[in-house]
């Protein structure tokens, strides 16, 4: 059983690590949802009160739903904006495609905070766009309506996500055998028809991967809303964070975090059922 020993030497360290620092904390978080208080004696009392609170709080559920819908649109628009870029790179850019791809991807590696900050600066009431308009004489006052809104959050996140979405779509398009397009033309398809009937369906795993890749973190997003969202742009993630940082209601925060996890796992599981894992992962 030499083979088993080899396998266990290779796999045990990461398996134990993931169990202790990933699976265990998630399970404990679930247990925590049943506790009455965050610390001290009340944390030892088990209760369903937080479930009751959460399920009867229409505003809270509404915010979760709104964040999910908002994430859906942000992800969809990101995919729609990124798809033509990936298509251009894969089918039209020829020799330069890897260079052009790198140009796009590099922006994804610029600090997340800085990219949000850039939009805070751009959109600010007396920020770059407003002040530029002012100095060009296009506008008299500042433009306070640009920032601190849901739209500002949407714009910023779409900006942040485009390179992340372009990569898996590009990888998906690259895996399509070019002779399939030729076969489609040969069988009488026009270019748009060939795209709709061959290219698009085959690139679907990449599209779905790109979509999920941004949808999931967007549902949990709280940094962008807190920087450019103001009071109207608040997302569910902000409330979760508040339970841990301000309200110190960890059990309710855990429950909200669990609700968020369940919401994002549903599309993930569906996608995993519909597509092969290796297609989604772009392997």
């Amino acid at each position, binding site marked *: 059983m030499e083979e088993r020993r*080899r*396998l266990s*030497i*290779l*796999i045990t*360290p*990461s*398996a134990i690590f993931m169990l202790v*620092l*990933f*699976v265990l*904390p*998630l399970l*404990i*978080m679930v247990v925590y949802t049943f506790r009455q208080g965050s610390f001290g004696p009340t944390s030892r009392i088990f209760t369903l009160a937080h479930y009751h609170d959460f399920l009867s709080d229409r505003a809270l559920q509404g915010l979760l739903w709104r964040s999910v819908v908002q994430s859906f649109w942000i992800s969809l628009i990101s995919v729609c904006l990124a798809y*033509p*870029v990936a*298509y*251009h*790179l894969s089918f*039209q*850019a020829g020799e330069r495609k890897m260079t052009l791809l790198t140009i*796009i991807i590099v*922006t994804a*590696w*610029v*600090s*997340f*905070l*800085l*990219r949000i*900050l*850039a*939009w*805070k*600066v751009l959109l*600010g009431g*007396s920020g*770059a766009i*407003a*002040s*530029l308009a*002012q100095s060009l004489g296009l506008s008299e006052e500042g433009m306070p309506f640009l920032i601190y809104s849901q739209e500002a959050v949407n714009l910023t996140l779409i*900006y942040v996500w*485009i390179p992340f979405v372009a990569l898996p779509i590009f990888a998906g398009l690259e895996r399509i055998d070019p002779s399939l397009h030729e076969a489609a033309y040969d069988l009488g398809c026009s270019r748009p028809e060939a795209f709709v009937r061959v290219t698009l369906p085959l690139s679907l795993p990449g599209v779905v991967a790109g979509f999920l*890749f941004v949808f999931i*973190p967007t549902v*949990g997003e709280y940094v962008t809303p807190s920087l450019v969202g103001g009071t109207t742009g608040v997302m569910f*993630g902000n409330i*979760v964070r508040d339970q841990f940082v301000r309200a110190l209601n*960890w059990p309710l*925060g*855990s429950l909200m*975090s669990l609700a*968020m*996890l369940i919401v994002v*796992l549903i599309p993930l599981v569906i996608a995993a059922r519909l597509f092969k*894992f290796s297609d989604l*992962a772009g*392997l």
Partner: protein
Amino acid sequence: MELRNRFSLGSLYYWLVALFLYLPILLLIVFSFNDSTNLRFPLTGFTLRWYQELFGAGELLKSLWNSIWVGLWSSLAATVLGTMAAIAINRFEFPGKNIFIGISALPLVIPSVVIGVALLILYRQVFDVELSLLTVGLGHVVINIPIVLLIVSSRLAGFPANMEEAAMDLGASFWGAQLQVILPMSLPALVAAFLTAFTTSFDEYAMSVFVVGTNATLPVYMYSQLRFPRRIPIVVALGALIMVGSVVMIFVSERLRRAGEAK
């Protein structure tokens, strides 16, 4: 004729998107040389003041150092653990393999806030440890393992399955084959995985902020500074430097990755 048309249209769109992606970043860089605390037009004059003040900003530099430190160790740990797991996945069939892959990949696709919250509860309520750079670093290993696993296992899957046998046929032991053939063969992927893990750790805020102690990492410190408008230009100046640094690093790792793929 039609083809030419389509090409220029796609090309035009590409460059518009690229412009959209680069303009805000370039704007920040421009402002980092502007002689005003207000990030607004019109520009008031060229200065290197913010870059000079950077060297006096002790807290900022400390958090930078913390982030480099955490990044190096968490990426190294994730690269070692993830590579071992990738070799195991590529080489062995075992019960629960798909569950292992699924769980190991999951941190990549669940919101960081969830991981942050769960780890916070684990650290404070179960282990009762003080939050520190170690607690942040361990969290970073959790999100970096999937990255390493994906990059390295996709590289390993690209090789013929019998490389290990070929090495053993020539006299190498199992572990000798791993060290002398499998690892060197995957070296470009290991470097790429390490660099990707490092930049991920270096930039991580959403989870880190839950498990960081008083000793902040760079993103956590930067975020806290955004409340003070006078500090923003310095933060931007540091950001610009890091941006240049990370762009260089990404080009290096992409080069390596592609050099490896052009087998």
